[in-house]
């Protein structure tokens, strides 16, 4: 006996098996990202007043990424529609766009991550903080041996709270310049990676997991774009269903970003 409803819809549910399967999987993904979002909410609400960062992320890049993903969602839908009207060439064009848009998104994300990883906060022995992007470390710079100097493009502040809200008028008015610090003056030094504070921790985790999903989705779509020709010739209906199912996953990944972007970048 063959497994029924792999391609045809079951009459009472109106679904074929894979479509039900992907919706169920997406329900579990909602709970996964929901768990992480609830962690974000609780960490933010529980943070010391004035110690939760605002404006640490570049809104322009985030907006570009949002529009890239929205556009890729559109091209995904159009790729599936092209399959439904049996136009394989248009399908190829649309999904090629999807893949390119996805790769651009990942490129911008990598740039943003890199930006955070070269942004340092240095606690000085006199209680002040040097904060900025790394320009250069002197050749003999060694934090443990206390030799050398490090140069940042940024500023020095007296209170760590001043570094938190980059949207405040004070932060906007602050002048950034070249700041050189000797290793002997440094108490501790760290970049804006995950361990810096709970905001960067949840930011990297949320966007990192999301980026892994984008990568996974891109690989699957690429695989079907590159090697789908043989199934298209023998069973176009089944191939169209695969495009629909992977498209549903892709739209979900876009949905997560629709909430990630405002929560992390705009609030």
């Amino acid at each position, binding site marked *: 006996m063959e497994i029924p409803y792999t391609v045809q819809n079951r009459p009472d549910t109106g679904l074929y098996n894979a479509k039900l399967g992907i919706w169920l999987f997406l329900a579990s993904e909602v709970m996964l990202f929901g768990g992480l979002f609830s962690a974000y909410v609780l960490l933010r609400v529980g943070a010391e007043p004035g110690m939760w960062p605002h404006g640490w992320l570049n809104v322009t890049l985030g907006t570009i990424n*949002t529009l890239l993903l*929205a556009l890729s969602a*559109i091209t995904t839908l159009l790729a599936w*529609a092209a399959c*439904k009207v049996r136009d394989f060439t248009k399908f190829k064009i649309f999904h090629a766009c999807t893949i390119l848009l996805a790769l651009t998104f990942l490129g911008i994300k990598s740039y943003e991550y890199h930006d955070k990883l070269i942004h340092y906060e240095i606690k000085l022995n006199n209680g002040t903080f040097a904060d900025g992007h790394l320009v250069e470390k002197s050749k003999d710079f060694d934090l443990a041996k206390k030799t050398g100097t490090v140069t940042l493009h940024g500023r020095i502040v007296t209170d760590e709270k001043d570094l938190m809200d980059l949207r405040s008028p004070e932060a906007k008015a602050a002048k950034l310049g070249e700041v050189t610090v000797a290793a002997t003056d440094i108490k501790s030094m760290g970049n804006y990676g995950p361990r810096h504070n709970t905001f960067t921790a949840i930011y990297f985790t949320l966007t990192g997991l999301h980026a892994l999903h984008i990568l996974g989705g891109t690989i699957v779509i690429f695989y079907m774009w590159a090697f789908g020709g043989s199934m298209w010739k023998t069973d176009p209906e089944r191939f169209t269903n695969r495009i*629909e199912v992977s498209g*549903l996953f892709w*739209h979900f990944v876009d949905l997560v970003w629709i909430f990630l972007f405002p929560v992390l970048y*705009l*609030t």
Partner: protein
Amino acid sequence: MSESEKPVSLQSYFRLCGVVFFVVLCTTSAMIATSFAHIGDGWTLKVALILAIAVVNAFLVAGFLMHLLSEKKLIFTVLIFTVFFFAGLMGLTMWAMSDFPTGTAIH
């Protein structure tokens, strides 16, 4: 057939996509504008507004791009129920973290 409605042609999908993308542009701009505007004291009202706009955006993507609105009503109802269920659970967790005896700390 794996969909309950036959697509008339690729053209009708182009129209749909154009409309959806335009609305997405608008909602995104609205969220950014709200974020930078001077609304209320602190962040709570802003966050609520921005999230409300995000929900509209999400509804568009789920409804039209994932063609949830053209699936059988039962599936749509089940998913909407899940959304409210999840919101309830979030609320419950937040209540649990915020309700503690007076004089004790929470962290």
